[in-house]
């Protein structure tokens, strides 16, 4: 509980530096390991010269996966930290404003109505669904003058999510082809993606990160309570809008790229808070780095764990990440929000 005050600047800088090293190491491991194990020299030459034999493996599979893992992990980590800061709730994951459920429903409608299963179609559908859902949630909370308290936002988000998930389940149960596509998408995976399709999502992600940075000071003020925050000259509407934009953009692009990988967003901020404390200037970057490391490591484990077959990163993440998180919580002193 007291970590915010006891964590000094040198220790926080050290923690962030260690996280940066961990991210670099995870990227390297992600490039080297897989069903086809490559040496460091091979990978480096292939990175420079694409015409090498292994160029296809490196540029076609390893590089996209690593970039995606880095991007999506960081997006979810930052989005989770903003979400928990906005709602002041340790149970809030980035999907709680209905973003993930909205994306899921849009993808299922695409599968059901248009049989749209291409990566680009899924991406666009998920972005649209996520945006619509978050606007609805925000309007509901704003209508009830709920902006001063984070609770109505969280409750409205959970209620809207439940509605969207119900609609999704209805369509999935009604049509076996849709179920076949949906059950794969919903697990979340980094494989089979190329870098050509990610440009729109990348734009969204960068915009989202900018919004998150712009929201940092407000998040610190909001932590003092909304009354004090308003007294300090904080515009609640602006603080909420910028935060919501950050969460929606980051989550939507991540979900669109890999399917719903919610667990990173929920837990990365808790781990980061234990490392650097609750101040958002340190917490947001640390959460992003933790998210990237966790996602990359889990993806590598998923490639190796089942021999030549592959386990989706979403499964490895929740199973392995869940167990690891339990152990960390049991040993360490978790910092409260």
């Amino acid at each position, binding site marked *: 509980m007291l970590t915010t005050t006891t964590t000094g600047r040198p220790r926080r800088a050290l923690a962030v530096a260690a996280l940066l090293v961990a991210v670099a190491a995870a990227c390297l491991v992600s490039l080297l390991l897989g069903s086809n194990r490559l040496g460091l020299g091979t990978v480096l030459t292939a990175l420079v010269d694409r015409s090498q034999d292994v160029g296809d493996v490196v540029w076609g599979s390893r590089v996209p996966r690593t970039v995606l893992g880095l991007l999506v992990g960081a997006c979810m980590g930052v989005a989770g930290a903003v979400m928990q800061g906005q709602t002041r*709730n*340790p*149970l*809030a994951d980035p999907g*709680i404003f209905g973003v993930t459920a909205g994306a899921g429903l849009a993808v299922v409608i695409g599968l059901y109505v248009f049989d749209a299963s291409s990566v680009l179609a899924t991406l666009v559908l998920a972005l649209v669904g996520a945006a619509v859902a978050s606007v609805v949630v925000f309007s*509901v*909370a704003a*209508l*009830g*003058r*709920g902006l*001063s*308290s984070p*609770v*109505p936002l*969280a*409750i*409205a988000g*959970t*209620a*809207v999510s*439940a*509605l969207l*998930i*119900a*609609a999704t*389940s*209805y369509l*999935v*149960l009604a049509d*076996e082809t849709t*179920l076949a596509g949906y*059950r*794969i998408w*919903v*697990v979340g995976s980094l494989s089979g993606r190329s870098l050509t399709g990610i440009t729109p999502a990348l734009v969204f992600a960068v915009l989202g990160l900018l919004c998150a940075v712009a929201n940092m000071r407000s998040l610190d003020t909001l932590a003092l309570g909304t*009354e004090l925050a308003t007294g300090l000259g904080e515009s609640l509407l602006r603080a909420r809008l910028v935060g919501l934009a950050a969460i929606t953009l980051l989550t939507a692009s991540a979900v669109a790229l890999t399917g719903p990988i919610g*667990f990173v967003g*929920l*837990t990365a901020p*808790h781990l980061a808070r234990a490392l650097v404390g609750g101040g958002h200037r340190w917490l947001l970057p640390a959460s992003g780095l933790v998210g990237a490391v966790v996602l990359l490591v889990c993806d590598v484990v998923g490639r190796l764990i089942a021999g030549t077959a592959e*386990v*989706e990163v*979403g*499964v*490895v*993440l*929740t*199973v*392995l*990440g*869940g*167990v*690891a*998180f*339990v152990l960390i*919580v*049991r040993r360490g002193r*978790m910092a*409260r929000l």
Partner: protein
Amino acid sequence: MTATVDRGTLDRGTPPALRRGRVLAATLTCLVAVVLAGLYGITAGSSSLTVADVAAVLVGQGTGGQELIVYQLRMPRVVGGILVGAALGLAGALTQTFARNPLATPDILGVTSGASFGAVLAIVVGGGTYAVAPGLLTLGLPAMAALGALVTSAVVYGLAWRGGIDSFRLILIGIGTTAALTGLTQYMVARAQITEAGAATQWLVGSLSGISWASVWPVLAALVVLAPLAWSQVRDLGIGQLGDEVSIGLGVSLQRHRLLVILCAVLLVAAAVSASGPIEFVAFVAPQIALRLARTDRPPLAASALVGALVVVGGDGLARGLLPGEVPVGIITAVVGAPYLIWLLTRSRGGSA
């Protein structure tokens, strides 16, 4: 009492008698609504009975076919729906108050994910065997679900114990455990034969269609034993809202009290989930609707249980009466409960746990 408290939610200015009156009025209204929804549930369905028909059956004047429909098909479904909904609503009120967090449903104790894991395991692994003897599936599924729920919650509680239970640590450990089990469940669904995946998805949504008198009794027993126990904890739950230090200072034996509250919630959900599958949303929405109806600062237990019953049995009745085909009640509860909660949200000035 300071005047700076969010007046729209807490209503501190209202005299205690009036506040108690509101809770009582909300509870009685819900009770009447549950009875009406139950009666509607008995008349609604693919072979429609009039109110007169049902009344005739109940006084022993119906035809054999009508008696079969009312006593063996409709009644267990309606009674089961009421009991399952009440158990979930009550369990949700307990966990939301215990954790002082409106997002804390019994799911965070690992009950639902454990039950789902057990049931899906039974469907996927035992699918071939059960296909030969479908009778085993109706018996084995609830047993596996209950087993999964109880083992998982025991593990969560055991892992969270470190010289005592701290609610924040319990929640975080619940999150981790739930995630791990959900991941395994999803993996099984993704790798199973498509027919088994369909059956698993169907079960995971939650449904009353498989309910019979045999699956009603465990839920009833759980409610009869646990509801009074939960009620006896009401006063301590109120004090718990003030925080750990204050509670201990006021002489609440915190650890024993927490174990009791958690045990009640776990057993109620385990019984409900085994009968109907995870109708997850009910445990979240019922206490939130109840506290806004009664305008209290924490979910009222009786009203939460009744709203839960109403959402489940009303939703199921509507699904059978108005919609073609069999729509699982887990979908309908969200369609009925979520808009109502959203409407309440847009009207109120805020809310609390």
